[in-house]
């Protein structure tokens, strides 16, 4: 196994392209190293992208934010403006692993690893985030929702990697939230996850909503009916109940060692409505 630490985006793209699928990108490494140790993967080349300046730091960007691919969960949690604008996105990322893992793990890694249960992804999709993908044909902007394509699979072509993620600018009466169900309080994998992003008008009526479920399908599920149940309401009890029913109806979970179909279906609605209530409360305050 070879280790490379390129200093530029172009260099990294070339290394990736030359390896022809036999390379793995190293950012936080919290998935990569575990997979290596467990013998699940045996790449010929490991490419550390942490020396590339474009992958670093969080920058305010026309009212929105640009988050580098190597930014850790801890860095996001310590960025006051980001937390104020996108609390749901940040709390999702911060649920990954322990305090030690938070010092390493990255949101972009969580996205590319493409676990259906990824805690960093539902709120990010609900936020309407995009990402910059660098590749042999230059750079392109892609909605983050298009990156995961199935369990462990993503849409990146040979030679491509994600340089950063962009969160859009948003009005004042807007917020988001992410909740997940695990049997414990931490160090676990979501049985159900729900990210909700809301915009309210001055009267407190919801004008825009996005409801995304995790861990109840091969990839995240965008529940338009649940969002529609919130839009035009004051996010009151009736709207939350309709949101819950729509989320449960949209969930397509499986029975596995982490949960049952019956349980996941019911809890999809519970978490979607609770996340919506939290997001609304945050938007109002």
């Amino acid at each position: 196994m070879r280790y490379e630490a390129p200093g530029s985006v172009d260099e990294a793209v070339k290394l990736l392209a030359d390896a022809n699928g036999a390379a793995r990108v190293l950012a936080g490494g919290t998935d990569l190293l575990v997979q290596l140790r467990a013998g699940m993967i045996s790449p010929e080349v490991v490419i550390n992208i942490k020396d590339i300046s474009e992958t670093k730091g969080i920058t305010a960007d026309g009212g929105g934010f640009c988050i580098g691919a190597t930014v850790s969960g801890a860095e996001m949690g310590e960025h006051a403006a980001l937390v104020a604008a996108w609390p749901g996105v940040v709390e999702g990322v911060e649920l990954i692993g322990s305090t030690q893992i938070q010092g390493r793990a990255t949101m972009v890694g969580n996205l590319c690893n493409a676990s259906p249960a990824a805690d960093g992804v539902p709120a990010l999709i609900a936020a309407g985030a995009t990402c910059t993908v660098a590749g042999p044909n230059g750079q392109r902007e892609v909605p983050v929702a298009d990156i995961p394509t199935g369990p462990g699979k993503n849409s990146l072509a040979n030679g491509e990697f994600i340089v950063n993620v962009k969160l859009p600018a948003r009005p004042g009466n807007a917020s988001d939230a992410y909740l997940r169900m695990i049997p414990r309080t931490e160090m676990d994998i979501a049985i159900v996850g729900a990210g909700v992003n809301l915009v309210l008008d001055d009267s407190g009526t919801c004008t825009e909503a996005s409801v995304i479920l995790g861990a109840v399908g091969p990839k995240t599920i965008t529940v338009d009916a649940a969002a529609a149940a919130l839009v035009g309401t004051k996010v009151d009890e009736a709207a939350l109940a309709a949101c819950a029913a729509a989320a449960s109806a949209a969930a397509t979970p499986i029975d596995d060692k982490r949960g049952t179909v019956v349980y996941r279906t019911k809890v999809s609605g519970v978490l979607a409505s609770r996340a919506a209530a939290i997001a609304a409360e945050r938007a109002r305050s």
Partner: protein
Amino acid sequence: MNEQPKQYKWVGTRAIRPDGVDKVTGRAMYGADLALPGMVEGKVVRSPHAHARIISIDTSKAEALKGVTAVITAADMPVADSKPVASGEAMINFKDLANNVLAREKALYEGQAVAAVAATTAAIAEKAAALVVVNYEVLPHVIDVMEAIKEDAPVLHDDMFTGGVKPKPEKASNVANRVEFALGDAEAGFAAADLVIERKFTTEPVHQGYIEPHAVVADMNPDGKVDVFCSSQGHFMVRAFCSQLLHIEMSKIKVTAAEIGGGFGGKTTVYLEPLAIMLSRKSGRPVRMTMSREEVFRGSGATSGAAMTIKMGATKDGKITGAYAELYLQAGAFPGSPVGPAAMTAFAPYDLDNVKVVGFDVVSNRQKVVAYRAPGAPISEYGVESVVDELASELGIDPIEIRTINAAKEGTQAAYGVKFGTIGFQETLDAAKATEHFKTPLGPNQGRGVASGFWFNIGGESCAGIRVNEDGSISLTEGSPDIGGSRASMALMAAETLGVDYHSIKPSVVDTDAIGYHFVTGGSRVTFATGMAVVEASKAAIDELRARAAKVWDVDVDGVVWEDGHAKPASTNVGDFEPMSLAEIAKVANKTGGPISGHADINAKGAGPAFGTHICDVEVDPDTGHVTVLRYTAVQDAGRAIHPAYVEGQIQGGAVQGIGWALNEEYIYDKNGRLENAGFLDYRVPVASDLPMIDAIIVEVPNPTHPFGVRGVGEVPIIPPLAAVSNAVAAATGVRFNQLPLSPPTILAGIAASK
């Protein structure tokens, strides 16, 4: 024992443990930390099948790999007789143990060792293990205990006929044994009751979850001498088992106890040690073997899962008139579940006239169970304490009150045979009732559960040596691997007895060549039994110190007493001598007869049974079924807490393990009998953020047979949590689940079904 507790100078203090600095600085040597010159790494080849006949094993490709120094299979091991052999207090069937260590004819569970390799690096060993070709004939398997007792279940051992049944069954089955304990007439007891409650319960097998995986370094010399360094709960057990399995004289095997990162009963047997010795013999090199966490889950013991029926009857005023239990415990692949102690402890907290308990030891295609903290008792007492709770609630009696009405006390005849001496069950109930916790009001979706627990505690073989060094410091040697801070406790008891500074004593757990036989660190016995040996050794040293002072003063030894670390004349009649300190006597030892020491080699009798009572508050999320433990108080009679911090640590740790058992821990198998959650991610022990601080309350009702009153504390605290948690969940939800674990899907389904 109504006298006031004596005032002690050292016993009962929270002294700094002598092994602490090495542990927190990473210097302590655990099982995997030893490296010897020329050492190679061993790796186990494990069965991928839950039940399969081994047709052939081809090791040639593995042996041909460059860097491989040895490959072994069961063919390299002597064939053992199928008969129980006394090994310390335990009866061991060495044929079963041999097969568990290395499968011979059949693999009886996924993860059972079938071969092992040694190579110059771990990576080569891994590669070589994959090159061992095992040809299996896959057989039908059975995992669940109630499935295993069915008429048409696949039979694991065609030579196993249920024991304890007359006449001997004609057909082999998976029921290894039947046990029964009775007192009075249970049926008559039920006839006299105003209320009879009968419930069926199930519990899942759970792993001990020690943080340190099994690890060993073994080195066999060309002349047949063997050195073993390993993490275990008994290096004398390792020596005895390896000697018996490999037909090597005990005198040729020296086992050194590594520091141990937890055992909880799971390290009272051998897995890797005999394999490492065989690999060392074959390769002529020292061999290190370590299990991965996955191997620990797949290949090492858990405790039983169970199915049981509990029936209890009581009068309107809460007096229990009759009790019956029928217990089916999984043994794993070979007989030997803790159904005996489960049956014995089931109703032991209560003073009952009419009791019957029947138990069955059932094999199935799972890891062979091994001891886990109070083996069997958490299971049977979970069922009993749940029914007691339901009786109390049906009769409108406070849960502590109904236990008080029925509590065993001095003179109570227990169904399992003994008549209790001085015990402190009632004192734990009184202390629990007096807590602010028990009186605190609860909010919506919250519930409180109370449960008690009993464990025998044991004594057994222990030895100790006290050597008075030339400068007056003390070297204390003993042979009980220190899991819970026992070196500190031993030094405290020696300091108290000798009347010297705790810090002048260095306690060591020495190897099997350096001291006499010790039974394992288990049964909550070390502070009691090894402590007793330490006190006796200290007293022997004091007798010698008195004799030396007598020599200096030229008086009769009877004229010299030992007080506060000094030899003194017994009276003015003896003479007017300045008291001599231990250090002063040590200084002149060469003029009075040479080095001074005291030794004791004992089989400690008179272990004191112990009881605990726990209070648990939970909140249940009615929409997700998630249980949050809000508050937890654990009260326990320790007899005497030699080192209160470590007693509290035992109580807290046991409670946490019991809570994990109650809430989320379980093995998940696929349809082929393969474990799906062989890791801490999906085998969910509680993490720190899951729990509140466990309030530990120590009650002291001294055990009259121990010089300081010690009972033993390690096991009782894991018993009450199962029922304390489930009684609290029942109170919070209004639903009695009667099954563990109370995982969120189970709770949500139960709530939905009740509506």
